[in-house]
């Protein structure tokens, strides 16, 4: 963070506040309860939920939603959600950061492809001829029909907090 006086980027903080449950970070008092049992923090030097919360509090946008952001190392295990005495829900703050990255097109390879597949078919797994054969062998009913256009009609385009 250098020797310069810290300037808080309030604009980014406000943007985070618009994403669903992205505002929990405002209650973070940096106790570190989220770190002790975090499996990603245990195995990676780059991932620390307390530091991610601090970085958001400073509004250091590039570090948390730029291409080098560590947030995709989160295991989504919800341990921090249960540990936090302030109800910050660090995992949900991290998901809010990912939502902003999604809006800016900065997501790991494969994630957007998986989401596109889901929206095109209604399912998050790819159906092949082997799928039907295996289901039949096991005596299962055929896969139900699914009208994915119903799902597509429900979507809103913008992530709240999007920059105009």
């Amino acid at each position: 963070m250098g020797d310069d006086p810290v300037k808080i980027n309030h604009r980014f903080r406000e943007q985070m506040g618009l994403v669903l449950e992205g505002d929990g970070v405002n209650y973070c008092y940096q106790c570190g309860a989220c770190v002790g049992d975090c499996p990603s923090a245990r195995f990676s030097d780059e991932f620390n939920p307390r530091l991610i919360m601090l970085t958001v509090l400073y509004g250091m946008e590039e570090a948390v939603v730029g291409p080098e952001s560590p947030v995709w190392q989160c295991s989504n295990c919800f341990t921090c959600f249960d540990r936090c005495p302030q109800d910050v829900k660090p995992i949900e703050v991290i998901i809010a950061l990912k939502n902003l990255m999604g809006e800016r097109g900065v997501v790991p390879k494969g994630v957007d492809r998986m989401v596109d597949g889901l929206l095109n078919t209604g399912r998050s797994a790819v159906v092949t001829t082997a799928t039907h054969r295996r289901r039949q062998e096991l005596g299962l009913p055929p896969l139900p029909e699914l009208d994915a256009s119903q799902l597509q009609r429900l979507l809103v385009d913008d992530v709240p907090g999007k920059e105009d």
Partner: protein
Amino acid sequence: MEFAFFPGCMIQVRHPQMEAAVRKTVGTLGIELVDLDGLGCCPDPVFFKSLHKENWLTLAARNLAIAEQAGLDFVTICSGCTETLAEAAHLLNPGGELLERVNAQLAGIGLEYRGTVDARHLITVMRDEVGYDGVRASVTQPLDGVRIAVHYGCHLLKPRDIMRVDDPDHPTIFEDMLRAIGAEPVDHDERVICCGKSCRDCDLPETMTRTILESIHAADVDAMGVICPSCFDSFDTGQLLIARKYDLGFAVPPVYYFQLLALAQGLKPAEVGLDKHKLAPKVLLEKMTVT
């Protein structure tokens, strides 16, 4: 007891053996699973939620609305679906502003969600509605002498107040369900850590999966018990990749709980796809002499 059945895409498409195990075992427990038309992906609580949480919530609400119209609560068999549907049901409480926002979207396809549906994993429903003794009573071929180490996975148990299943740090439900079918649950050091499947752009998935595999191997068991299809992937195909890369020198076959229940109820391994696993639970099947 009637429930709306939510098998989920991962299980329906990639692991139909899990769906078969459930459909073939619940009847004797007095649970009736009703198939509803039009259910979509829960949707996925990791990547879909990561790209657009409001859309994630709306698509979940669509599924909840379909169950609500049928007047039924959901029973799920995948931990990810359980997490999404239970969290969405928790966030969309009646009278809330979020429910109003989601309904404004649902109105576009002629649906409304009133906030009345509950979503629970089948193992929880079995404990609470059937009871361990009821499960025990369905067993004809107890898994005597079969040693199984449990991998809980995350989303069955956490977040604690939303999932309402067990103490996520000291859970017993899986071990208790194993005892009910005659198996011997074996403790190990890493039974509640994450398998790592959801981490991206790093080595964490293989590090976490390998840590758990080594912990289970040290416990000297016949198989590992899993309850989640994503964890199953980590310990099935994931284990094959890790074994090659790190020269593991051992194999721990993962088995879905309801496949074990099926064996205990006298079903043949092939009826629940156990003959198609990449890592066959040979010792387990030999002990049961059902090969």
